[in-house]
Every structure is written in C-alpha cells, then in structure tokens.
C-alpha cells in the first residue's frame, strides 16, 4: 500500500457494512466451528536460546474434573503464566486456580460437586 495515499476508513462504507443485513451476512459466511468441539489437552511450546543452546519446553495439561477430562485448553507463556480461552481476560499463576475459576464461571457445565 502507498502510505502517502489517504488510508482512512470511509464513513459511508462503515455505515453500510454496519447494517444488520450486511453485518449478519458477514458472520453467516464465516466458517462455522464444529458443533460440540472444544479443546482437548493442548501443548504449549516455549523456545529460547541461551549461550548458544536452543531450549524447547513442551507443556501439556491433562486435567480431569470429577473424573471427566476437562475440555479447556490451558496455555502457559514464557513467563510461566497461564491463560485459558474460556476466560480470555484472566491470567493465572496456578493451573489449579485456573480450573477453580472455570468451575466458578461455568457452573451449568460442571454441575453440582460431590
């Protein structure tokens, strides 16, 4: 793109695209996620280099709640902090805490505890 051209978003196009028909049409055309599909255990791969050595750390959380596998991907970043798609604004220092908070936020999914 030529950065000297006027790149600013066009208010007329914005208005037209925001109409519910156009807006909904965009959403309907997106690839639909498979129904009932969610994460299984996910791998987090952290890589780094130190003094000429290549470091790779693969982490997989296999979690069960009440004996059932938890279909919630936990991801760990380079700092060691955890995130999960089910609570996208949260960051955790403990996987146990992450699962506790998921249970707290999705009570219908987990049902009553024993």
């Amino acid at each position, binding site marked *: *793109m030529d*950065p000297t051209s006027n*790149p*600013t*978003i*066009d*208010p007329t*196009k*914005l*208005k037209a*695209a*925001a*109409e*519910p*028909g*156009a*807006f*909904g*049409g*965009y*959403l*309907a055309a*997106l690839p*639909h*996620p498979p*129904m*009932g*599909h*969610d*994460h299984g255990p*996910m791998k987090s791969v952290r890589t780094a280099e130190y003094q000429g050595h290549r470091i790779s750390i693969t982490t997989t959380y296999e979690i069960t709640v009440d004996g059932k596998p*938890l*279909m*919630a*991907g936990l*991801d760990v*970043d380079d*700092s060691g*902090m955890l*995130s*999960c*798609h*089910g*609570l*996208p*604004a*949260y*960051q*955790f*220092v*403990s996987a146990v*805490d*992450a699962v*506790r*908070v*998921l249970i*707290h*936020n*999705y009570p219908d*999914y987990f049902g009553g505890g024993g």
Partner: protein
Amino acid sequence: MPVVRRNILTDAVARDDYVRGVGLLKQGNSPYTTTQLGIPGPAAPVRTYDLFVVWHGRTMMTPIPPGGNPQVRNAAHRGPIFLPWHRVMLGFLEQNLQRVLNKPGFALPYWDWSADGDLGSPTNAQIFTPAYLGGDGDPVSDGPFAFHAADPATFTVRIEAAGPGGMTLRQTSRGLRRAFAQPPPFGWLTLPTGAEVKDALAFTPPAGGNPVDRYDTLAFDASSEGFRDRLEGWIPKDPARPVHLHNQVHVWIGGDMGPSTSPNDPVFYLHHCNVDRIWEGWLNRYGRIYAPDMTAPAGTYKGERIDDPIASPLGASATPRSVLDVSAIYTYDVLP
C-alpha cells in the same frame, strides 16, 4: 461531521440515548437466525445487539496467523490488532445506535474507570447505580438491564459461551450476570487507577530502537513489550498482580464480562470506548504509528500487520492503518 464521544457521567443525554438504543438493538431482530450463524439448537432470530456478541466470540476463535492457536494470538486479542479491531467494533455499534435512535449525531459515551479506581473502586460507583447501568447480581436486578422474568421485553442474554473451552457458542435465555470485586483468583478487588493509565502512556522503549517499538514489539503477543500490551493488560508479568488495565476491568466486573461473549454486558462498550480513548491519547501524543509493518513474516503475523485486513465486514478496506486517524468519524471530549 465527526461526533464527539463524552464521559457518560457528564452527559445525561448520551447516557439516556445509549440505554434506549441498546434496548432497541436488543429488541430488533436481524435478518439472520442462530442456525445461519452456526449456533446449535432450534433456529431462533438473532437480535441485532447479539450479532456483536457472536462477532466478538467468533473473532476470538480466529487465530493469528491462520492455522495458529487462537489462544496465543487471535484476530482481536493478545496482539497489536487488539486496539484496531475493537475500534472498528465500536464504530459498528455507534452506527447501529445512530440508526435505531434516528440520531446521526449520537456519540458512544465512555466510562473512565480509572476515576473510580482513584476513588477506591466502590462497587456502588455512580455508573453502577440504577440511573446508569445498574449494579451486580445473578441476575442483575436493578437499573435498565435488570432481569424481570415475566416481562417479555426485559434485557435477556440469549447467546453465551458454551463451556470452559470457550470455542463454541450456545443459546440461552437468562438475565445479565455481574459479580464486582471478587477476591483473586476469581476476580480482582480494584479498578485501575489514573496513575496506572499514565504509566502505560509514558512507556518508553530502550533508546536506539525503532519509534514504533513504543507501540508493540516482537513477538507481538501477550508477552511483548510496549504500550499496547500494557493497555490490553498482560504486562508487567507479576505473579502477585496478574491483571492490568483493560483485563483488570473485565475481571473486576466479573460475571458476563469474563467469557468470550463479554459484549453481552452493555458496560463492555463503555469500557472499550475508554480503552479507545486512551489509545487516541497515545496516538495524539506520539504520532499515528503502528507495528508490525508489512515486513513482518506473513507466516507468523498475517492478520495483524499494518495493511492486513481487520477481521470485519469491511473486508480489505479496514486495516490497522485505516483506523489510525478516525477524526472524520469521531473525536473525544478529553484525551488522557
């Protein structure tokens, strides 16, 4: 003629218009059904307001780059695209509110949460009184978004995240949920303060780098150094303080502001309008710059480079570059 976005606490007309407009968007059916949007269950009309809930949730499932892991980076979060994508989303809501209100001069108001943070994060802050957005609860029981089961026009959450995987949506019919200031790890006790906003705005990269390093840097994710990651709220990485700024507000409010369907709560837009205002203050201060540019490898960064299309109905015409100067569409009354 650009509209001027103002603080909701100082503009009663904007407040009343916003509440009325959200109600109209919640009542109005879009031309699409849940089935057409890939949401399981019987086909039901999708209200215009709920198109935004679906859009946010689905964009969060869209990885950057294509084929990557949306949990690491997606087309709206955890990377430099966070601010441009939400700017477009707010523009879409503002256009729809102008339409249903029949008021082309309507401007989305913002909630300056740092002002409440400076007051000690009261759970009875003015914004959460019945005259504004109502308080917390399951369901919220006061204010314009309270749930009254016997009233067919009551504010109803109809689409939500299907489970802790966060990758699928489902239909529901219930009231709005909020749970203010829960103790960690379930929530967070305080809102961000004005000093914390100032700190993010003042971030300066090491001398000798590229000027755009002030915005974001490799690896352009939730660990990268820069203003964007500070405002989104992933850094500084501190086990004793895992949430900041934007993320902290979601976590402090709790309830429906937690999952990928957080636009279910009308406070979402007032919150993000303030985030957008802080970005505009940064752009005004440091220049209308953005990173990464198009030299960043597509295999890793496609979808968040300066001339990549933003994931929106605008297609290729909306890019991060195209939203760096929106002064033809709106301005703010006050910039931080």
